[in-house]
């Protein structure tokens, strides 16, 4: 079993410095991700100013109930994520494993819900880009709305899927007792990333489901 000292890479002075670097690194990564999504939100805002009526009409097509359910699922998963970090800090690794498993499951549930929602849209003729042929809202503005919808929620689920994979890795690390109450950077970083993905979803929820 590796000692705490052996975990310090030879170019770091000590574990504290290494942990601090890891945390700062993830925050910077999240900043770049925030800009990534912001660009799309800005594009959306630009088109919303051009096509206000079509955008409002199109927003009515997304399922309010489904949207609320997905939000509930993700918020719960974030709660479980935060709890798992707390458990590891308290040395309760077993509970933490269950909580992390819960996070992963909820993430997968979200992906499944999204898949059904997309399936329903596709069946109605709402495709992104050139394939769009939704009879109820044939206007250009609606087509742009739904193309952006697919792009933005699509980018989100790619990030969420990556998050689920990361949770899986962290779960495996936890089960092998690789964490200590003082040092568990992979868990912290994954936790931060998961919260970020959840926050992005909240903005998407507001824009695509609540603005009707």
């Amino acid at each position, binding site marked *: 079993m590796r000692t705490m000292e052996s975990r310090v890479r030879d170019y770091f002075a000590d574990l504290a410095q290494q942990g601090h670097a890891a945390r700062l690194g993830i925050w910077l990564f999240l900043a770049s991700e925030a800009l990534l999504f912001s660009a799309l939100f800005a594009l959306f805002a630009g088109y919303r100013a051009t096509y206000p009526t079509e955008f409002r009409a199109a927003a009515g097509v997304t399922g309010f109930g489904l949207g609320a359910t997905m939000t509930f699922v993700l918020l719960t998963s974030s709660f479980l994520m935060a709890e798992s970090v707390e458990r590891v800090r308290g040395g309760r690794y077993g509970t933490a494993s269950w909580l992390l498993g819960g996070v992963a499951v909820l993430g997968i549930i979200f992906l499944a819900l999204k898949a059904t929602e997309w399936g329903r849209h596709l069946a109605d003729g709402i495709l992104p*880009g*050139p394939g769009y042929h939704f009879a109820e809202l044939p*206007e250009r503005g609606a087509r742009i709305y739904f193309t952006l919808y697919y792009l933005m929620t699509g980018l989100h689920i790619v990030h969420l899927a990556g998050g689920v994979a990361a949770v899986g890795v962290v779960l495996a690390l936890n089960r092998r007792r690789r964490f200590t109450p003082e040092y568990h950077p992979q868990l912290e970083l994954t936790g931060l990333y998961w919260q970020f993905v959840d926050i992005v979803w909240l903005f998407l929820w507001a824009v695509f489901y609540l603005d009707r």
Partner: protein
Amino acid sequence: MIGVVVQGASGGSARWEGLVESLNRLYRKILMLPEQASTMARGLDFLHYFEITVMNVVALVIALTTLYFVIRYRRRRDAEYPPRVKPSISFELGVIAGLFSFFILFWVIGFRQYVEMLEAPEDALDVYVVGKQWMWQFAYPEGPASVGILYVPVGRPVRLHLTSRDVIHSFFVPEFRIKRDAVPGMYTTIWFEATRPGVYLGFCAELCGVGHSKMRAGVVALRPEEYDAWLRGRPPMVAQLPGRVPPNIEAPTQLEYQQELALLGQEVAARHGCLRCHSTDGSPHIGPTWYNLYGAWETMADGERVRVTEQYITRYIMDPNFKRVAGFEPVMPSFMGQITPAEIAAIIEYMKALSTEPEVRSGRAIFEGPPLPPFAPAPGTDTIRAGGAGRNR
């Protein structure tokens, strides 16, 4: 000098005027600027001279100071370690504040001029400019249309309404100091007032494909009487005007009066056989009549309502399997590869002329309408890339 710049004109005594004019000529020569053929050009050039003078002075100061320091403080002994120099922050602030106030002054003058360049005077004459790969078309509300040559009167403000049929172009006339992008799907405007008769060169200033370098226009500024005569159909004596003619426009001696584009369109339609199936007087025939067709809302074979616009017509000529007006047989052949963009423009102008709607007759292009579905060429047809490329090739 600032007053001169802002007003773009001289004031005061004749000697002062003469001095300013010599300065103008000198700077213009050194900087290789073309002649000032519009009312705004002089003021813009004076701002330019002001800025370039300040910049050169600053660059000279930097260069000379550096040279002086390098000579005076050149290392003479290897073990030379000069003592600390207390930085004079007030000196630094002074220099920077001085420079910055020049920058702000440049911006103030430039911005005022920019606003003036965009807001045309009340009595401006409107001209509609359409850029398309790779030509410029000009249409006048009460008059002929022309391809490749913009006719304007001297001494009267002209407001250009620019748009594009395909990709972004930009209409640039150096002698007038104007430039504005021609963007598909929207209209942009810019105005100018020509100050002397002549032939001027217009360029496309936004990369638009292989013909970008050759997408030139001639701008012919005519004395007011000659301009009126041209409006009424009398060709102007362009050969006698000063200026360089763009190479893709015929030389002045051979310049013939550009037929009204609509008449050209009638000839093109006859030549390509369109009039074998489309009547022009409302009588039913193999295809829909062109009388009052442009701009109308038609019901398609699948029940959809589509407006007959520039894009629709252009698209349809290339791809007759595209939305077809209900009640007619699908017998129209595709003209892809057989008809040039210029000819399509002419046909469209002809169709507009066959309308009784005043707005349509005025020559204004109509872009609004329901969304166009994607263009996927039928299997076996000409493999033009799916999408916009098929529209105007």
